[in-house]
């Protein structure tokens, strides 16, 4: 047995034991530090798990000061968790799915045995598509202010004109997502529309239609993790994280094959994601779901984003974490045995994180 395998076999496996998210809304009256959205869902996650603040070994959040329009907005958010006496805390300026990765490392290495991860975003405070252009290269791209919708539309046309997907394929993603979202009380958009009806709508960012684009959403999400041996005391059926990987593609949009997601392919290959029951995919544009399904090799037998996905509500910096929470919930409720969650960050699926969760064996 190699030393690496020996370590793998004995390493602590973190599990999701709690998940709560706020309603996805177009505009909250709250502040950009997220306190008003976080306080109720932190309470909900504590109630679910029976844990309290003092039980949490490590706290990690994901948010963005550019979105909030204020410096150190995540410091104000700490008010929502009650950080006195001092807590063991960290933050990433990314979707909180990457904060979950940091928490996963903390548990995996045995430093702590519980962690609480949260993300929040008041996307409505500024002009979202304009703010997101600052995620691009600051020398040759960001000074042009390329908005996030236009960049995604460039990617969509590549696929349409190369025959990788069709407008109908894209509309089918929207129709399924919005129909599924009818069962999600926290969804911002939902409804029943035929593909033909959707395709009758005008182009809003040629070649994209409104249904191809995730809505602008304010929201927040919380996930509680515990080491596997503690997890079974906290949840009846914890969702054990059996693998988590993240990768990044070149930031140079013109040097990438935008119809593929090599970073997602690589993360999926490292995990062996073949036989999952459910996959919650973070695809803010319909064609990006098609790219992700292909990259992860998800067949027709895999239930895709039963929550309605981010086309039904896309709270920036929380939506990726919420995908992990939604996929974990399918395991925790017994609806599925093995689920996958994907999170993305940056323009045109630049960075991707994939995690696989299973019922405890």
């Amino acid at each position, binding site marked *: 047995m190699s030393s690496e395998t020996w370590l793998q076999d004995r390493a602590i496996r973190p599990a999701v034991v709690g998940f709560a998210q706020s309603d996805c809304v177009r505009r909250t009256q709250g502040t950009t530090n997220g306190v008003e959205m976080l306080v109720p869902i932190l309470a909900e996650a504590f109630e679910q798990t029976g844990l309290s603040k003092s039980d949490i070994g490590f706290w990690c959040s994901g948010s963005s000061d550019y979105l909030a329009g204020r410096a150190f907005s995540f410091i104000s958010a700490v008010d929502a968790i009650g*950080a006195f006496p001092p807590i063991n805390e960290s933050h990433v300026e990314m979707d909180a799915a990457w904060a979950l990765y940091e928490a996963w490392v903390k548990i995996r290495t045995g430093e702590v045995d519980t962690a609480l991860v949260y993300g929040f975003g008041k996307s409505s405070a*500024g002009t979202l598509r*304009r703010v997101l252009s600052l995620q691009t290269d*600051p020398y040759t791209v960001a000074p042009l*202010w390329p908005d996030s919708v*236009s960049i995604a539309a*460039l990617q969509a046309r590549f696929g349409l004109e190369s025959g990788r997907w069709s407008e109908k394929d894209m509309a089918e993603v929207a129709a399924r997502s919005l129909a599924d979202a009818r069962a999600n009380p926290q969804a911002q958009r939902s409804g029943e529309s035929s593909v033909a009806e959707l395709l009758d709508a005008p182009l809003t960012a040629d070649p994209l239609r409104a249904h191809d684009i995730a809505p602008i959403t304010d929201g927040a999400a919380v996930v509680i993790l515990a080491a596997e041996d503690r997890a079974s005391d906290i949840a009846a059926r914890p969702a054990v994280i059996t693998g988590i990987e993240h990768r990044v593609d070149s930031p*140079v949009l013109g040097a990438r094959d935008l119809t593929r997601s090599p970073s997602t392919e690589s993360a999926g290959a490292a995990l062996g994601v073949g036989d999952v029951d459910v996959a919650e995919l973070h695809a803010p544009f319909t064609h990006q779901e098609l790219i992700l399904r292909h990259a992860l090799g998800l067949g027709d037998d895999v239930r895709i984003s039963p929550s309605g996905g981010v086309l039904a509500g896309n709270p920036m910096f929380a939506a990726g974490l919420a995908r992990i929470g939604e996929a974990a919930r399918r395991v925790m409720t017994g609806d599925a045995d093995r689920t996958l969650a994907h999170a993305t960050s940056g323009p045109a699926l630049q960075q991707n994180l994939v995690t696989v969760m299973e019922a405890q064996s």
Partner: protein
Amino acid sequence: MTTEAPPLSEPLEIQFDYTRSLGPVLGRFMTGLAERRIEGVVGSDGRVHVPPAEYDPVTAEALREFVEVGQQGTVLTWSWCADPVAGQPIQRPFAWALIRLDGADTAMLHAVDVTTPERMRTGMRVRVRWADDPVGHIRDIAYFLPVDAPDDHPPTSPPPPVAEQDGIMVTPIKLGYQHTVSPEESRYLRALGEGKLIGQRCPRCEKVYLPPRGACPTDGVPTTTEVELPDTGIVTTFCIVNVPFLGQQITPPYVVAYILLDGADIAFLHLVRGCDVDQVRMGMRVRAQWRPREEWVTSMRNIAHFKPTGEPDAPYESYAHHL
């Protein structure tokens, strides 16, 4: 139950000129743009990268071999921007495109000036429209035009600021938000507009916060019980400001102090005036000096400063835990 006014909300604009050092590769590229020349860099596999890559995307090798490329190119993909946002290269409906310049192997993202999406197609040929005043910045390429477009286009937008040193580019970033304060802060600020000081008590630890925060930072629970506080209190600690700085509104020396209002559990920063600066003491009793009522707004600014009351100082033990 009374209907509460919505939280106070105001537009907020933030602005910063990002100055970035360019290094040898991007520096040469930007210098070339100032001279209306476009240079790419040759990758390890012989591909020509435009804009230039500093390191090879496959081998990570440092790239230094430059080659000039054409000022015409081919559209590989495009999208229509019907509603441009501030700062974009064209301020009327236009197309974004990935454009492969003649002689390059990678594509650059830029804007194409056409009037309708019907005038765009993949594979179309476009040419650079240079800025009227190039300065060594990516914005020296104002936008692209179809190759056969007439030469009668209007002047380009003003150039970005020029850095004082070589090898630096300056990019002004301006962002607009609708800034909203919390419901608790709104009640606090509206009360200040009526000359009242409203704090909130945590239901768990019973501490009184002013300004109210919406959630107790110790317990993480919503703070709901409002408490009206007097405008008297003590100085817990202070400093004497002797240093002038940009935007200073008072001539030094002056005193900035933590003021703990009677009945509050958290101090806030304010000014102490009305005595010589060397008379200010820890534990000193103070009272708010309000501005004339006609100047009141929804702000702590309504209190011009705190001034000594002349009462005996508070004993150190009574406020030591606030330090």
